């Protein structure tokens, strides 16, 4: 079954947390198990099924890290 999807370009993420703070579903958090080449913990989605594809995370990210797809 197709569903809403966000794709995170982890190598570009600076772990600023703006997306996680803005997400109305509260499903974004820093992945403390990873450090990218820039030295940041990248963001991760903890509950993809809850995503409504509102794209607030994508729009607020200064580094264009997140691509958002809606189940159509």
């Amino acid at each position: 079954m197709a569903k809403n999807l966000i794709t995170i370009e982890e190598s570009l993420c600076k772990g600023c947390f703006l997306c996680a703070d803005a997400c109305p579903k509260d499903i974004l958090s820093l992945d403390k198990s990873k450090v990218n080449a820039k030295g940041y913990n990248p963001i991760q989605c903890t509950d993809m099924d809850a995503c409504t594809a509102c794209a607030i995370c994508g729009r607020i990210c200064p580094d264009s890290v997140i691509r958002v797809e809606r189940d159509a």
Partner: protein
Amino acid sequence: MSKVVYEKSRGLTDAPLTYCPGCSHGIIHKLVAESLVELDVLENTIAIAPVGCSVLAYNFFNCDGVQAAHGRAPAVATGIKRVIPDKIVFTYQGDGDLASIGTAEIIHAAHRGDNFTVIFVNNATYGMTGGQMAPTTLINQKTSTSPYGRQEATTGKPIKVSELMAQIPSAAYIERVSVHDVQHIAKTKKAIKKAFEYQIEGKGFSMVEVLASCPIGWNMPPVEAAKFIAGGLMPYYPLGCYRDIHAEGGSGA
């Protein structure tokens, strides 16, 4: 089947941005890039980068670009636009660049009514050089050169650029916006697009002042810095359209 509802704009290059985590410059770059793509002028646009953290902006916008001496971007833009008037020309300037060393250039570009667009990023500090006090720094705001906070008695009150520019008879469109949340980001994009539309239609000088954060210079985590735009900057720098000589009824001083 799924539909892409948001992705990186092709108006930006693949170069990773050199800005600090959570810096508003990245958000504002995206809005400029998306506007140029949506107006179908990206391939015909020349960006003028300033001195400041956005000194490398010509690497990030997927159009032609040059970089000007500190504060002189409006003078360079004037020259380019007058020699090749069919190009879309914009300057991208910080408040140290535009409101301090470049005060003469910005005022006289508007005074001449030159037909280009200015994206003015007001983060109330000199980010690149280490968070020093700018003319736009708020009273009591602590910076590396005002460690006890800006004092009116010795440095006056912060300059209000949009209000000042709105008094210039040949300026066409002046608006102040903010990027601290998605609702305001959407309004900022509208203003930026309108400014470029005015230029495309030959309507004259346009400037969009964007209230922005400098989390590193302000010594705040990005989420807190975004809140400081709303709670600290906005009360002193009210948002809104300060001049629009082509609006219904022709507002403007």
